[in-house]
């Protein structure tokens, strides 16, 4: 098979992987600080996808323009969810948290099913069928825009955690919960803020995902599982790890489909997960717990 085929498929895989990475980044941020695993992560992404579809079909608003507003809506939703529903469960056993979030996921899926029905919905932008050709390399325009937006959004998030006082306070909460309380940080508010940031990430990822795939109410559980595979591969709680994990999984799926059989590409993503768990259980960029 010619080299340019591998190159085209690899570039497509990396660009899709970047969006996967941004989605998983939200999960990693929430777990890294709040220590709650969001089992409704993919379902929250499907809310963002439906928002993007509704805004496009109703008002012809391009998903790339609606990226920030939809992320903001998910931010508010995430904050309210954490402050009102999840916060009382933070000190409870993990199985209680698991049941709460799985119940939330089921409620989201069924609400979307009632409101939007089972049909696949799509966003047909003016550039939906565009591609860029550079020599033998053909790059899908929607994937390029989505991947670029994912890098930008992730960079803003890294900047927020590194350079702002609130970001530093959140990191302090993650590093030492008791210490954060001793110095007078409002941990409850910071936890809600962190969950909101994670939800904003998944909101942005979902908005961009509508450029790449069709949305159905059942899309959520698939992406919740995928987000777990990515964060475990990249290192649970590591922000750069989530992005790298996304790219690794996106690339693996793409190349496995090309080299072996496309219908088994997900199997290879899980094979990577098994290898990571066997030989580097803390993930690619995760810290080893001694």
């Amino acid at each position, binding site marked *: *098979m*010619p080299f340019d*085929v591998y190159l*085209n*498929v690899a570039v*497509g*895989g990396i660009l*899709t992987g970047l969006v996967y990475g941004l989605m998983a980044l939200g999960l990693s941020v929430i777990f890294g600080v709040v220590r709650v695993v969001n089992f409704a992560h993919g379902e929250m992404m499907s809310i963002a996808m439906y928002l993007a579809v509704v805004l496009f079909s109703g008002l012809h608003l391009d998903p790339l323009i609606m990226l920030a507003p939809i992320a903001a809506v998910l931010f508010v939703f995430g904050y309210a969810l954490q402050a009102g529903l999840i916060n009382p469960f933070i000190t409870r056993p993990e199985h209680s948290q698991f049941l709460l979030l799985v119940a939330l996921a089921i409620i989201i899926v069924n609400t979307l*099913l009632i409101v939007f*029905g*089972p*049909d*696949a919905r*799509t966003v*047909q932008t003016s550039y*939906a*069928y*565009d*591609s860029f*050709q550079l020599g033998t390399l*053909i790059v*899908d*325009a929607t994937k390029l825009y989505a991947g670029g937006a994912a890098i930008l959004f992730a960079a803003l998030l890294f900047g927020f955690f590194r350079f702002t006082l609130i970001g530093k306070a959140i990191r302090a909460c993650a590093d030492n919960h008791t210490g954060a309380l001793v110095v007078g940080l409002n941990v409850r508010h910071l936890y809600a803020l962190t969950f909101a940031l994670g939800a904003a990430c998944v909101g942005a990822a979902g908005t961009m995902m509508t450029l*790449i*795939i*069709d949305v*159905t109410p*059942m*899309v959520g559980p698939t992406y919740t599982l995928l987000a777990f595979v990515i964060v475990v591969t990249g290192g649970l709680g590591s922000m750069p790890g989530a992005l790298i994990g996304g790219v690794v999984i996106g690339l693996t*799926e*793409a190349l496995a*489909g*090309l080299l072996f*059989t*496309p*219908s088994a*590409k997900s199997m290879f993503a899980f094979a990577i997960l098994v290898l990571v768990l066997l030989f580097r259980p803390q993930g690619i960029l995760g810290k080893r717990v001694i």
Partner: protein
Amino acid sequence: MIRIRTPNRRHLLAGAAATAATLAAPAIGRAQGGPLKVGVLLPRSGFEAGIGQDCQRGVEIAPAIFKSMGLPDLAIMDGDTESSVDTARARAEKLINDGAQLLIGAFDSGQSTAIAQVAEQKGIPFVINIAAAPDITEQGYKFVFRNFPTAAMILGDAFANQKEIFEIVGAAPKTVVFMHVNDTFGTAMSKGIGAVMPKFNMPYTIAEEIPYDPAARDLSVEVAKAKATNADALLLVSRLNDAMLMTRELVKQRWTPQAILSMGPGWYEDQYLKTLGKLADGPLSFVPWYDPNKKLSQKLEAALAKSFPGINLNTNHIFTFEALLVAADAYKRAGSSDPKALADAIRTTNITDNVSIGGGIQFNAKGQNDKVKDGAIQNRGGKLVTLAPKDAANAKPGWPMKSYQDRG
């Protein structure tokens, strides 16, 4: 003095007869008329929802036509398989428990196989509208009937119709890539190709076979792999969502094959035509189809146009309608809703005033209609034209496909 009569043998016999008559009353009641309760199982949600809901249109236009044909009323009981084999089985059981006297469905081979097992076990007739996996009618079932060609029949007719088209246009692809869904239907078609294709001496060879997940959300890798073979044409067995995804990828990856030869659903559905507009033009589908020259076809077309303006008559409507036609016809002849009487009546079906291409509706000893034939159709300006077989054709083939990049 009052004499107390002790029951003798004659009294006991009379009592037993009265009891038997009372117990038999429901059966007599069933024979006395009223609409036949028909459970219609379709994938109304899930990844096959678009096609399942399209089949439903065939259900909705049937009553008025049946009335004009003097056929009895049917009471439709809806069932949603949710595009899942397990749900199909559970819904079939529920419909029977709720009083369904006959089942129809279920578009998908895997789901139809599960329903067939339940129907046979419960002794309720099951008329398959659409499902091609050959095994379903090879199990020796007594209550399962299929008015739809098997995978081998579809393939045989598809190859014959392709050759007819190649002859008309004076051209043919030398190599094809065979892409197919890896579900029950796709796998059955894949197996069938190996057995059937050599018999037809086709002008092309299969450069590569690419199976894929019917619920896939991105087919970029699959299309890239197919494009890399430099094959002249695509030979396909797909569903609706994946057909749309594949078309988008063909456009994005700037590849217009000489022809798209589809041997399954997807490429001619209304949702495909409406969603893709000009990009939908060109694919050839080799599918069980209707004979536009038959009287009932024209009646069905008119009824569909009245109830669902702008929707083209297609396989989903035709075979769902015909499955109901089989049920109504059998109920009329049986004069009873007793499942065994219905099954016996279906077995002796001989409907010549029908819609699909071929010699009408009859079932062989296995419950298979072996008279039904496929047609070759092409998407043209949002409409569907019939190209083959000659007797049913109403247009000449457009060949080769116009480049996706030149469609404005």
